[in-house]
């Protein structure tokens, strides 16, 4: 096999221009595959990181209406209803959770309202958090100006850069919040901007973080929350499954009952809670699959054409080697190996090209200049991710495709009769 593979590689050089042209398709195809996977993996990483760090943790406890149907909105991850005994439940999960990998269990309270500053107002997403217990959120939303929510300052608020720009707010400025409490009354509160975090996913554009106690006062829910966000030490699927079952058992034991008759307490993984994010990830993967299909088809046609031309050009040569006793099987093997050799060379060049582009943009980021792109990418800058598995997959697929595409021309070559082939002009 090895001498035959050597001959196969050498044969590639006999028709440099033709092989370069058909190989070029494969180089571009494999580069596009690596790049596509890098973009898709980057989007998946950003959306998942946003979801886990900022909204749901790996697992969350939340109250949902019995007929709850996610509307594919990023806000679906937040609960809308009061989660009774949320503070106690969070403490209980954290205390018992050391056996099933819980790093932290923190309550938070989210509600939408209006933010007013001077003569400007805007819809606002108000989120009450225990600031000192949110290291993931702090890392996900680093301050662009000022500081993250300081401990023990009930008047502080940490806000997103887009809403800061819209309301002309800077560090030290006062903003008023007006909300309708779940009971129906209108309530208000003033806060002082302690920091502004850089723009992230567009659904955080209107976010205001407040100390949980201040938010509870504003919503008129002393000790209340909408979610318990559970972060695990290991975010692997098996750990999440195990933690979810254990937390569900704890919730059942603690007899937490929602106030609304038609509501239920649910323990959800971040994948269940973040349907919106995962539908984007799924859409990207489907688009990549369809794109790959077309790329493969185009590359395969190129390879078949190139190999058939090679068979045609080498008819007399095939006739000679067949007349000298080369068996049909060996002819087939030689042409298939030529396909494999072409595929390996092109895959190596393609993944090197695609990988370099991904690594470049992983360092610099790709600006997502339109709101649609920002929603799709889960941020205004996309950082692609180069995974060894994606590189290997693209390489193997291209090499495999090239080998498979060589089978038909190989059999065509093997079927040539030596007598007729030698007479070929």
């Amino acid at each position: 096999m090895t001498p035959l593979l050597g001959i196969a590689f050498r044969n590639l050089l006999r028709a440099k221009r033709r092989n370069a042209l058909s190989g070029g398709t494969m180089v571009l195809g494999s580069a596009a595959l690596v790049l596509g996977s890098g973009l898709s993996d980057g989007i998946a990483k950003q959306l998942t990181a946003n979801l886990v760090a900022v909204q749901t943790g790996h697992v969350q406890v939340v109250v949902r209406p019995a007929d709850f149907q996610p509307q594919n909105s990023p806000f679906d991850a937040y609960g809308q209803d009061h989660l009774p005994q949320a503070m106690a439940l969070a403490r209980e999960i954290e205390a018992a959770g050391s056996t099933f990998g819980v790093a932290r269990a923190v309550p938070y309270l989210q509600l939408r309202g209006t933010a007013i500053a001077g003569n400007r107002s805007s819809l606002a997403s108000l989120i009450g958090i225990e600031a000192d217990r949110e290291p993931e959120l702090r890392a996900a939303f680093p301050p662009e100006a000022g500081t993250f929510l300081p401990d023990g300052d009930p008047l502080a608020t940490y806000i997103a850069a887009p809403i800061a720009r819209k309301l002309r707010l800077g560090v030290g400025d006062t903003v008023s919040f007006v909300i309708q409490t779940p009971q129906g009354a209108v309530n208000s509160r003033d806060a002082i901007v302690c920091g502004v975090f850089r723009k992230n996913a567009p659904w955080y554009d209107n976010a205001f973080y407040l100390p949980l106690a201040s938010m509870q006062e504003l919503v008129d829910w002393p000790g209340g929350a909408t979610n318990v966000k559970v972060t695990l030490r290991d975010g692997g699927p098996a750990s999440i499954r195990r933690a979810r079952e254990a937390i569900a058992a704890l919730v059942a034991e603690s007899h937490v009952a929602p106030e609304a008759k038609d509501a239920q307490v649910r323990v959800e993984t971040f994948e269940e809670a973040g349907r919106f994010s995962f539908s984007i990830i799924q859409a990207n993967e489907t688009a990549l699959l369809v794109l790959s299909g077309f790329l493969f088809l185009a590359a395969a046609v190129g390879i078949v054409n190139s190999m058939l031309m090679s068979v045609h050009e080498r008819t007399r040569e095939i006739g000679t080697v067949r007349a000298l006793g080369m068996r049909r099987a060996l002819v087939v093997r030689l042409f298939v190996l030529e396909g494999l050799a072409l595929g390996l060379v092109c895959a190596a060049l393609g993944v090197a090209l695609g990988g370099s582009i991904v690594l470049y943009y992983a360092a610099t980021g790709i600006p997502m200049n339109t709101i649609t792109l920002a929603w799709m990418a889960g941020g205004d800058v996309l950082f692609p991710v180069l995974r060894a598995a994606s590189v290997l997959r693209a390489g193997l697929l291209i090499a495999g495709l090239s080998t498979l595409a060589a089978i038909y021309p190989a059999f065509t070559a093997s079927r040539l009769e030596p007598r007729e082939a030698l007479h070929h002009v």
Partner: protein
Amino acid sequence: MSSLLLCLLLAAPTAEAIVRQADRAVLGENATYTLRMTVERPGRAERVVEMRGWKKGDDLGLVRYTAPARERNTAYLRNGDSTWLYLPAGEKVVRVGPKQNFGGGDFSNGDIFRLSLIKDYDPTLVGEESLDGIPCYRLDLKAKDRSVAYDRVVYWVRRDGTFYPVRADYHTLSGKKLKSLAVSKIARVGSRERPTVLAMESALETGSRTTLEFLAIEDDVKMDDRIFTPSALEKGE
């Protein structure tokens, strides 16, 4: 002297009676009306909307835009605790909250359709004072429960026997003043004299103000309950 003072005290109306009278100062129990709403926002062009309204008791209300032409037939309906908005462009009826703003102004849907304060508040007469030279009763209205939009309303009502409201300051649960309503321009509209201009000003958003001017009012009009339904809203009945 002491008996005269006693007589005067006995003659002074109760807080409940004052609020009950003030509730009916602008619109009676059943009425139809024509209204002009002017929304002022700093840095933006003034927005003027004209509308026709129907009111039956405290629970049924309907307002339909008549101008500008591009917004004609946009309608708000109040039936009991529910409020709907009809947008003719999309031919859709959507449920809206009573605390959401009405037509993009400073009035909420509840402010427009729930003009009766006595149902939701326990009033206390705290004194008498002059407001812009008008002798008034000053009342403190405390919400009966936490489902009422404004936890506290400070209310000034004319002391001249007309019981026309003069001003109302609406406060949130935290005690912060949210907005102020000024009631003015007493004129004969329809069958009687009444205040005809209601101006709501935000206490939080500088320069934000919405004025409602009643152009025509017809009192004691008989109305069919069926016009106050979402399906009638859609049909434009």
